[in-house]
């Protein structure tokens, strides 16, 4: 096959491309430039698309002896991922930008262009398995990325090759080292790539400005503190609340909800975060199934898995959880699994204790 390998400059995509080359495919590499003003050097596990990453990616391509190009997707990344991220927080929701990047950039902008240019599929270093059209968890459950790929359509998956799903991260690093790839020991990237200093609240404050409002205790209804912007708070958050009035029961307080119009952040005790019923919209199916459906649901990347029953509702699903989930925020993805197989995904709109 004629394959387009997306090389981030990290170890996973490097080994994925190496597998594709060794399997005898005709492989061309691209590095996606997602920042219009890339930093020169990478700092630790944060940030992405520095010139150093681009160089690392090009050196991988050199070693694999495959053509290498840089595709400038900074404008689309800003519009589809960063602006959406800010808008979601401004609306009191909790987005997952990696998932949106997969959906809009890697498996839409890049895949569409690759197919149009005559490639058969795109190769990425995601930790997940594709077999017979089914998307499954990686054998390395700590590194599994099936959750952030679950938003893809069957058509997108048909144009995707994921060589790493049956390898653990340790094996990937060992393979990179055995192949002489200099990125073998490069730190894993985590955090949000476009917030280089890791300060999400600061990033949002810069974009949205100060929007002060009250922090209200759910039990007493009393104002127990203030904030500079409700967008800086996420359901389930405990740290950084700066409450001026101690909780009446003396127990820790967590963010229960964020209401952007009145700029109200509601806090309460931990058990008030527990929900057993979730409403989700915009469902997308990767496997055939009929509702109601008994399966499992995962509500955040690397989060817990809950047994559930999925019921059809007018604009999506109602999920009845067998065990309560904590800290479910609107905007997160609810991904349905049957064991290690991804069935569908949808966007959380709300939840209740049922």
């Amino acid at each position: 096959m004629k394959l387009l390998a997306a090389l981030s400059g990290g170890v996973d995509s490097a080994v994925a491309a190496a597998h594709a080359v060794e399997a005898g495919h005709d492989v061309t590499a691209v590095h996606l430039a997602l920042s219009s003003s890339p930093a020169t050097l990478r700092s630790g596990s944060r940030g992405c698309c520095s010139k150093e990453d681009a160089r690392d990616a090009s050196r991988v391509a050199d070693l694999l002896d495959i053509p290498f190009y840089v595709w400038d997707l900074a404008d689309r990344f800003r519009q589809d991922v960063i602006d959406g991220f800010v808008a979601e927080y401004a609306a009191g929701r909790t987005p997952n930008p990696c998932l949106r990047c997969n959906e809009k950039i890697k498996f839409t902008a890049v895949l569409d262009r690759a197919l149009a240019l005559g490639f058969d599929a795109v190769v990425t270093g995601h930790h997940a398995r594709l077999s017979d059209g089914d998307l499954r968890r990686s054998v390395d459950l700590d590194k599994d990325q099936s959750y952030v790929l679950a938003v893809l359509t069957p058509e997108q998956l048909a144009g995707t090759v994921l060589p790493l799903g049956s390898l653990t991260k340790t094996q990937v690093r060992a393979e990179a080292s055995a192949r002489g790839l200099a990125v073998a020991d490069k730190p894993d990237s985590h955090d949000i790539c476009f917030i280089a200093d890791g300060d999400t609240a600061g990033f949002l404050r810069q974009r949205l400005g100060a929007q002060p409002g009250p922090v209200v205790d759910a039990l007493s209804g009393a104002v127990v503190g203030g904030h500079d912007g409700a967008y800086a708070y996420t359901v389930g958050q405990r740290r950084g609340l700066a409450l001026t009035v101690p909780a009446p029961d003396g127990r820790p307080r967590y963010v229960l909800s964020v209401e952007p119009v009145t700029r109200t952040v509601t806090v309460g005790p931990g058990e008030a975060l527990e929900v057993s019923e979730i409403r989700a919209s915009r469902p997308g199916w990767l496997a055939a199934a009929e509702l109601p459906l008994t399966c499992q649901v995962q509500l955040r990347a690397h989060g817990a898995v809950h047994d559930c029953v999925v019921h059809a509702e007018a604009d999506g699903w109602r999920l009845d959880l067998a065990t309560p989930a904590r800290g479910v925020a609107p905007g997160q993805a609810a991904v349905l699994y049957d064991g290690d197989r991804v069935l569908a995904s949808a966007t959380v709109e709300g939840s209740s204790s049922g």
Partner: protein
Amino acid sequence: MAYLDHAASTPMLPEAVATVTTALTAALSAAGNASSLHAGGRQARRVVEESREQLASALGARPSEVIFTGSGTESDNLAVKGIWWARRAADPRRTRILASAVEHHAVLDAVEWLASHEGASVDWLPVGVDGRLDPEVLRAAIERDPSDVALVTVMWANNEVGTVQPVHQLVEVAHEYDLPFHSDAVQAVGQLPVDVGGCGVDALTLAGHKLGGPLGVGALLLGRDVECVPLLHGGGQERDVRSGTLDTPAVAGLAVAASLAVERQAELHARLSALRDDLVRRVQAAVPDAVLNGVPLGQAHRLPGNAHFSFPGCEGDSLLLLLDAKGVEVSTGSACSAGVARPSHVLLAMGADEQAARSSLRFSLGHSSTRADVDALVEVLPSVVDRARRAGLPALRR
């Protein structure tokens, strides 16, 4: 394999390879720092000085006007910053730079640096749709206040679209007001007649690898009476303007290549013009909506080896990738260190919109180009353009 990217780097001439090889081989037995006083040093110095004379003679300059550097970029930086600093030191009011809007980044970014770090003011002189700077535009810019101008810098010929500037007339205008004039002639030497003495330019940049010499060596031809503050301080080589031990083999290779390039210039111009005209006609026949950017065919003010097109609906990046896969090597005309193609400031200055700028491709011919290179391009181009058009411009596909 068809190499159509001579404007990026052209193969070394065999004579230059032989010269460099001889000089390197000599270094096996005699360690020669051209600044040393012993026999080995004298030998290296002799090579350097004969190279200086050879290069000066080829370009109508005096040997003392040749400053060897490490690249065209270094020469541009030295000229722009060095002359600006010297002019300001002599008269603090002289901080304004007049530069064409289509300069190479080596000039453009040096000027921007002076503006952002040293308080320079800049007039980016607008060009016409063909990329030419009208000398009257320069005159009007000077006339706004002749007493505050530090220098004028206008390239001899543009690296992207190949437009040749009316350098003689521009220099005349600048000299009416006693203003120093620098020209980046990296693309011009060997393709066009370049006579430093004849046109009176005060500083002129050239680079080895654009004219058949080695990579990693360039020169600034700097008039004897032009004050220039050095960028590099040290041993005082090169008239105290550019310290650093010279790369003797590279300097020798540059001089031989420049000398031959100038000697063969008229013949090369005639041959490449014909080949380029053929390329343009065949590209337009193969892709009827392809738009030739810059100076129209049949007019003199274009580099003989340059053909620069916009292919509507295609992204230059896509065309490059597809042609590369077919063994045809071209350029989108502008690249930065991260390899990210940006809409060209040159095309934007010529009035192109961003889409047209992003859909452009440069074919550039040189001394080793043949009809077979053009054949190879024209054979694959229609299918490549067709495919790239289907991949589209991302902004149009949203």
